[in-house]
């Protein structure tokens, strides 16, 4: 266990959930940017499977975001609007070279999200702090989202392996 690797207050929990929301917004925005960034011929060539993967990833992130936002709301904190994060992604965005690059970025998105929720769950479980939100519901939400991120990693990996 690292120094202080536990969530010790509502404030810290809200902050970590806010970071989760931003991560989901980054995934959603980058998936949209990837589709738009490819040159027209590449966009045509991008197969249905990859297109569906990106669309599903964006939908799933939006759904995760809403679930996290509900928790943040209960902790009486605010989240950063999607439009703001989308603008920040836009400002720093460098498009991947090709479809493989898009898939690799998507894999990083899913792996990062999985790692984030895994660490957050560990930090909540390690804490004996009493939160303003129901701990069981918090953990159930985080377990669900983590499981979907794990499935996301598998899905991208399978597509990448098939294309290799």
């Amino acid at each position, binding site marked *: *266990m*690292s*120094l*202080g*690797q536990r*969530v*010790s207050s509502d*404030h*810290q929990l*809200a*902050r*970590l959930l*806010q*970071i989760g929301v*931003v*991560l989901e917004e*980054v995934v959603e925005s*980058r998936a949209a940017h990837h589709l738009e960034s490819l040159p027209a011929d590449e966009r045509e060539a991008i197969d249905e499977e990859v297109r569906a993967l990106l669309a599903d990833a964006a939908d799933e992130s939006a759904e995760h975001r809403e679930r996290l936002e509900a928790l943040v709301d209960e902790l009486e*904190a*605010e989240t*950063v609007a999607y439009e703001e*994060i989308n603008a*920040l*992604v836009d*400002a*720093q*965005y460098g498009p991947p070279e090709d479809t493989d690059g898009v898939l690799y970025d998507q894999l*990083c*998105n899913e*792996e*990062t999200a999985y*790692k*984030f929720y895994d*660490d*957050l769950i560990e*930090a909540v479980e390690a804490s004996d702090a009493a939160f303003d939100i129901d701990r069981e519901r918090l953990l159930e939400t985080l377990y669900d989202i983590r499981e979907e991120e794990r499935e996301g990693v598998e899905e991208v990996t399978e597509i990448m392996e098939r294309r290799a």
Partner: protein
Amino acid sequence: MNTADQYLKAIYLAQRIDDGPASTGTLADLLGVSPASVNEMVGKLESRELVEHEKYKGASLTDEGLERAHDALQTYCIIERFLANVLEVEEFREEAHALEAVIDDTVADRLDTIIDRPEECPDCFDPEADCCKYLEVEPSRAD
């Protein structure tokens, strides 16, 4: 960021503050732990050849330790910048310290895709101010 990386980062900053080997006292202050804990961890880092320790002088990073300390400080800078500029947290230093143990490098790398960080990072980190010398802080968003 794991405990070893937090210590390596602190040794790097303490070496800059002390302008020489990092003293146990400076490290204990930076990390908010006891001198005994510092000595124990420095011993462990020494056995992993990340740190050299000279009695009565203090700890210095080896080349490998320096490389890891650089990465750890970069991760820390990302967390501070993210808190200050994206979430607009006024107490970003204190919160970055509280969060660094829970935020993994891969997560920081993703957050890095939406922040503007100078190329010379982390050399521009000011240990006295405990943040990047170029960091511009925006007015606070309601928490």
